[in-house]
């Protein structure tokens, strides 16, 4: 302290020091408590804001998904008028195949319809688009008969037809069915049946 004052002189203002210390402590405590309470409220409000924002984002995403879903569903229905089929009628397909073969003068028809299976990677859920592989062996007079048969099947089947591969070769004379067949065709066809979508 300066030349006029010594530390022990503070004893003379001890009451004032005590009162000031108590008042200052009370004031600082009050300020600290109020600050803690305000911080707690601030944190709670921030959490509530975040929760609301998250909920709004999820609702917006859900509503957007629903709108997009309707758009895509309408697109599917445009591409496949009448929507999907009831559970695929495999026997019905085979009957239609035989009828079409008769219409298009197929001299000999052999086929094999594999069990339904999931589609390959990147395809929609297997439950919506089961795939059946159909192997055809046809003896034809002309390649136009093959094209006509395939077009007929596309119209008749309530499924999507995907010709994976086809080969057409000239029949040896010995196998020409007495002149009724000049060509032999072997085709691998995927049948994707579309279930009802809503």
């Amino acid at each position: 302290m300066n030349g006029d004052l010594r530390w022990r002189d503070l004893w003379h203002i001890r009451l004032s020091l005590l009162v000031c210390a108590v008042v200052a402590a009370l004031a600082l405590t009050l300020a600290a408590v109020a600050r803690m309470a305000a911080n707690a409220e601030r944190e709670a409000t921030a959490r509530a804001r975040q929760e609301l924002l998250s909920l709004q984002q999820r609702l917006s995403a859900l509503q957007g998904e629903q709108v997009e879903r309707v758009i895509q569903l309408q697109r599917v229905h445009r591409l496949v008028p009448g929507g999907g089929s009831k559970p695929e009628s495999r026997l019905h397909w085979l009957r239609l195949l035989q009828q079409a073969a008769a219409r298009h003068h197929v001299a000999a028809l052999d086929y094999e319809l594999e069990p339904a299976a999931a589609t390959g990677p990147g395809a929609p859920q297997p439950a919506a688009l089961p795939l059946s592989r159909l192997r055809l062996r046809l003896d034809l007079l002309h390649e136009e008969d093959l094209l006509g048969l395939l077009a007929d099947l596309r119209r008749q089947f309530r499924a999507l037809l995907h010709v994976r591969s086809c080969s057409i070769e000239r029949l040896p004379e010995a196998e020409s069915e007495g002149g009724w067949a000049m060509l032999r065709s072997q085709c691998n066809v995927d049948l994707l049946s579309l279930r009802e979508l809503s």
Partner: protein
Amino acid sequence: MPQQRLLAISDLSLTVYRWRSGLLNLEQAFPADASGLVQWDDYLRRNRHAIFSVFAALADESMQTEEVPHATGADRSALIERKLAQRFPGSTYKFSQMLGRNNSGRRDEKILLAALNRPEILEPWLAILQRADARLAGIYTAPLLAERLVSELANGESRFLLIALFQGGLQQMFFEHKHLRFARSIAADTEDMAAVAELCASESATLLQYLATQRLAAADGVMPVVVLLNDRDVALFRSICRDQGSLRYSFADLPAIARKHGLRTPPEDSCSEALFLHLMVRRPAAAQYAPPGLRRFYHLGRVNLLLIAVTASLSLASLFSAARDLTQGHRLTAEQTALAASIAATGRDYQQALALQSPSQLDSASLRTLADLIESLRRQENDLPRLLAQLSRVLDRFEAVELERLDWRPSDEQARANPAYVMDIDARLPRISGSDDTAQADTVRRFAAALQGVAAAAVSTRQWPAAIDAQRKLSPDQLAQMGQETPHFQLRLLIAAQR
């Protein structure tokens, strides 16, 4: 706030004035005897919490100007204490004041050393003050306080004499460059103003001679003399104090100056005591005579006041902060209530939207992929018929070429979005004995070129007719065999799907 008490101490008495907001009122006077001291002691018991300032009117002061080497801190303090002890041995009431530094050489400091020559006049009163632990702000004299008036009284002069009247005499003060250089008090009967005026004139000349001998002033230079007077005494003084030799007299309006400095009870006569008492409170001089021990409780009072002020400021700030935080807290609570309502409403909307969905429904991404797949398959439907029709047209142009086998498939099973197709063609040329190999090659090339027009296909030859196949091993047997065979070749077409 503690009250201000101004003590005017003279040889004969101690007079207590109460000062408040520029109002000076005589409170009590105590004679300088035993009874007066007892009364003073009693007075202090009743008023020990006030702040006291002592004005030693017409005190006998010694002043000297000295030059000391420049120093700082404790060294400087010790140096000045030593000088004061040397010049004024045994004097309790002394001070030093820096006047400036020399402009050349070592640039020593010029300091004014001063002391009260008759401390015994003050000591009885101050002893009682000290015993009562009263707060003494300082001990002042007229010369110390008059520095506050120099700027307005000097009239631009670098040196001048200031004369003030007090009860019991005159105070002469010499100022140079706004600093006090010398002071002298002269006893006089101030009831007789004519005698006072005569004394003023004679003593001014005496002082000028003294200052000249002390080389504080030039003997032949002009010395302005300013006398603080009430207006009613100016005419008398002007008639007696005439300019002569170096002395040039002027008279300052004492009441006007007092009012200017905020004294609301200006003197009604030419006694300057009220003005200087007021200056003790309003504009106390930095220098004063009280030794450190006497001012202890004054400083302690200031510390206490500072403590209270700091505590009050801290408390106010804390209360303000707490109030602001509480207000914010209330606002945030209200906001939380509103947010809770919004969360509940949004949650209900979300649940309703969720309820519209079926777990077995395809999501939009799956539906988009499905629609893309269907579109791709639709595009493929016409690819094979179109290719076969184009191939047929080309074959019509090349009657010599007979198609044996045709294999068609997508080139990449995975790329259903824009597939390319591979078509392998096995064909034969007519067997003509002695056929021209070059003609065969030419036919195959022209046939391949024509096929390139089929949906802009890329055509590659996988197998040439044996006769022109550079990869085939030739021997007489094989040549004979080749002559029996039908020329046969294979082409591969890579075709992009039509959009």
